[in-house]
């Protein structure tokens, strides 16, 4: 669960990303609300974001959002990752869920 301050930061970052049609398309085409929530978590790279300073909290939030994703969500995220090593990560998650 996000604190009030965190929610405000995420919302500011989200508004910024939604001005870019590529991210807006990615977000709006997501197959579920859980997938949208996860994507919103990844739209957090603005000037106030630093994973070295709030690494633990980011990992905690990531685990929370990831735990709600379905195979279909992972397939969607994978399809939007281009040639990134994230494709391999998503493949592993899909296999875990299919077991």
């Amino acid at each position, binding site marked *: 669960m996000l604190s009030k301050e965190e929610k405000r930061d995420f919302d500011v970052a989200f508004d910024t990303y939604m001005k870019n049609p590529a991210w807006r398309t990615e977000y709006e085409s997501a197959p579920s609300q859980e997938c949208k929530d996860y994507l919103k978590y990844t739209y957090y790279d603005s000037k106030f974001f630093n994973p070295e300073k709030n690494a633990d909290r980011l990992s905690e939030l990531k685990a929370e959002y990831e735990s709600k994703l379905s195979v279909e969500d992972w397939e969607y995220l994978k399809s939007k990752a281009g040639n990134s090593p*994230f494709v*391999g990560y998503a493949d592993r998650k899909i296999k875990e869920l299919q077991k």
Partner: protein
Amino acid sequence: MADRKAIKRYHRRVDERLAKRGKTFDGHRYDFNDKHDKLGRFAPKSGGSSGVKTAEDMTGEDIKVHGPSESKNHVAAYIKAHPEAEKQIRDDAKKYADAMQRVMKFREEHPDAINASYNASTGKIEDVNSGYCVTFHQNHKIGDEYGAYDDETYAMMIAVTKHELGSDEVYIGNFGNPEISFNCKDYQHAKRFCIEHNQHSIYDAKRGVLWKNPNWDESMNPIKGEGSNKDAE
């Protein structure tokens, strides 16, 4: 002049593909009649129809965005500024050109085993689970694996970028198409590089997260694969 023609040809091809689907482009394009800022960067008129802003507007930092056509100039300028590193860079470029060839050959021989990261020095598959992965590679042309780069320029860009990023490891990511990737320890450094080279994202290998670049201009560096927004249109 050649670059202008190439960009116009690229835009024309995108328009033709969209027209077949009964759609039109909804973003703001680089136009040589547009105004530029003091560093020569593209500055959309009133934010453009897409509302995408410049790197400076989005991040509060002063970051120049490089296109792939600037790679040769970038290599030459970097070597000129770091003459002490020239021999190392040229030796590395040769090594990485060989590694790239090995991966391409392996991919032809083992088409089912393509989703992996190869260490560019050893040619062996490695599980990358620390640092931040970023690249300079821009998919200038859909369907062309090396985009706007020739083999020599690509190898030199690898060697220069490794030096520039102080990257411990260089990988060849083979997730659909071979693409070079640099493992960078410092997030802020990786982030700056990501914006400079108009990249889609940074891969946070420790957490397994793609941190997205808010400034990414998809029209100039489309992602490949089934989920490409351009392919989906």
